């Protein structure tokens, strides 16, 4: 795996050259409020990146700056190496799918989709051909004469998508576009959008506060918190190796336990505990575990190189696709997720919780 330095440098240069969309220390302030602070991001051609974060963390603001709908307070936006920060929205060639879809209510579906082509001076027959192609891409062939109000939510979403795609944008920007749909339709649309995005090889930025959406839809995820990007990485890394306490808590479920630092190492519930990852300098620490990475075993099980914590089963919660077992331990209450198959420890049973040091993350404790 070890690469010569020259080769690595070369690859770095290549990645930089291939960067399709680059955000360089982008910031947006509204008076005292800092909506977006120092966001830097580089998206490769054909890549799809999710901006994931809680409500109000600046996702929409970032997307609107990229589209040119608002002017950044500081920083720069580059597309294919060209600075577009000062370019007005109508000359940026970005496909933007709004959360509310923002279809033109006075125009038919075909006119909605053809809007961008009209503005580009595309001739009539060519426009009609491309509109028809775009509508068949999103499987809406029969509905071109309808008005937006005569469509279901999912159909409206497809029209908005077709309208953004038909102009062959440099970047496709999607703002929480699935949040208005019911769960089943959302899953279906997710797959459809991903397939379309992959087959067209279109560079995409996807805003969402839904982690499942981010994890399933995108090549990389940028987790945002209070206007800043906390971590940018592929979904597996985000989930398995969150870079901060915030990311660990926001993405996926976690078990959080207080842990102490001693001469010999970390101490959890009176027993030493090992981690394969760096431990922050701070004095007050917390241990993060994924509930499904904890194994339930008999009370006297040898843990070997793994971590072990004894406890007593308190109760079970059946959640449909999994069984959550609540265990009271020296360190506090722990939720363990199991498939529910096979023998399950009953309430009152003494058990051991066993997990690997590589699944053990330690972060500084949040200020109270």
């Amino acid at each position, binding site marked *: 795996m070890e690469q010569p330095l020259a080769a690595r440098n070369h690859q770095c240069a290549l990645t930089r050259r291939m960067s399709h969309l680059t955000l360089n220390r982008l910031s947006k302030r509204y008076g005292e409020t800092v909506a977006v602070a120092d966001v830097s991001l580089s998206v490769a051609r054909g890549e799809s990146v999710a901006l994931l974060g809680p409500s109000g963390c600046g996702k929409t603001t970032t997307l609107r700056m990229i589209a040119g*709908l608002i002017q950044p307070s500081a920083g720069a936006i580059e597309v294919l190496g060209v600075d577009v920060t000062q370019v007005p929205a109508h000359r940026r060639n970005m496909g933007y799918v709004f959360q509310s879809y923002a279809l*033109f209510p006075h125009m038919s579906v075909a006119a909605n989709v053809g809007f961008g082509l009209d503005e580009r001076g595309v001739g009539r027959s060519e426009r009609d051909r491309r509109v028809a192609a775009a509508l068949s891409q999103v499987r809406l062939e029969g509905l071109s004469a309808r008005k937006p109000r005569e469509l279901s939510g999912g159909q409206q979403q497809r029209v908005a998508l077709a309208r*953004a795609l038909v102009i062959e944008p440099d970047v496709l920007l999607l703002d929480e576009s699935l949040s208005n749909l019911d769960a089943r339709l959302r899953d279906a649309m997710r797959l459809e959008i991903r397939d379309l995005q992959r087959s067209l090889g279109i560079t995409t930025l996807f805003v969402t506060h839904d982690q499942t959406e981010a994890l399933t839809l995108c090549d990389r995820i940028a987790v945002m918190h209070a206007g800043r990007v906390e971590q940018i990485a592929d979904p597996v890394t985000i989930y398995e190796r969150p870079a901060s306490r915030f990311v660990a808590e926001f993405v996926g479920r976690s078990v959080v336990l207080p842990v102490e630092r001693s001469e010999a190492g970390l101490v959890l519930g009176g027993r030493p505990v090992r981690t394969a990852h760096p431990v922050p300098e701070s004095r007050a620490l917390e241990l993060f575990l994924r509930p499904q990475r904890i194994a339930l075993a008999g009370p006297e099980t040898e843990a070997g190189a793994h971590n072990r914590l004894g406890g007593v089963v308190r109760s079970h919660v059946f959640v449909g696709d999994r069984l959550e077992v609540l265990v009271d331990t020296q360190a506090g209450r722990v939720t363990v997720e199991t498939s529910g198959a096979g023998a399950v420890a009953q309430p009152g049973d003494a058990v051991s919780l066993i997990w690997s040091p590589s699944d053990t993350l330690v972060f500084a404790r949040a200020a109270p």
Partner: protein
Amino acid sequence: MSGRQREQPLRGRLTGLALIAPALVLLGAIYLWPMLGLGRMAFNETGSTGAMAPALSLATFRSLFEDPFTLETTWNSVWLSFVATLLALVLAYPLALFLHRTQSRFRSLLTVLAVAPMLVSGVVRVFGWLALLGDRGLINAALMGSGLTAQPTRLVYNYFGVTLGLAESLMPYMILALLAGFGRLDRACEEAAATLGAPPWRVFLRVTLPLTVPAIVLGFLLCFVLAMSAYITPKLLGGGRVFLLATEIFDHAITNANWPAAAALALYTLVLVLLLVAAYAALTRRAEA
């Protein structure tokens, strides 16, 4: 059970009736009854002395329709109202759009200011226009003082002055009507148009304007009707040289003391406005479909 079910809607209807009864009574007393009286009056006769004699005659209507002046006045009224309303629309539209969009803290204050002229008597506003447009008004003083013109330019006591004054007096109503109708205007639609490559003026033509058509239709209708019935502004700014239906009705009634003629012309105006409004409604409905 079924008895109660039938009782409910009846009681509901009675409650509704009771609630609107005061308004109905008031309307009947101050609007319908005088209108009936007016209608009756139009069929009376004017004696040789000029006094009104009760009768059931169509003589007044006959002379009204035989007089070529009626057609001319009608045309004057309709055309002037149309131009004044159009002018008010053109002036009020950008203002209303700004008021609709502004994020300013002073938004409600600005809205109040925009419609504040409504709080000032029409007479006062007319004198304002006279001070501005009169032969010795501000504009003529400036024109002559700078040597651009030697003689005062006629800006009032003609159709131009009346149209201008009327348009100004209609603006607050137009602004309110437009603001009420701008609800359908979605900022996201305009932004979507921009991201699809439309420069600002194309966004306005293809999205903003079509989405505000209902507001324009409403404002136009309201102000046209107001313009047709406006009296003070045409009277004072027209200075006796502008002949409209409203001023003619007044002249018949007060100057000539010919009440049947005034009543007949008033009825004629009412029917005319109703017909125009109906035609307008039919036209816009057809355009929408």
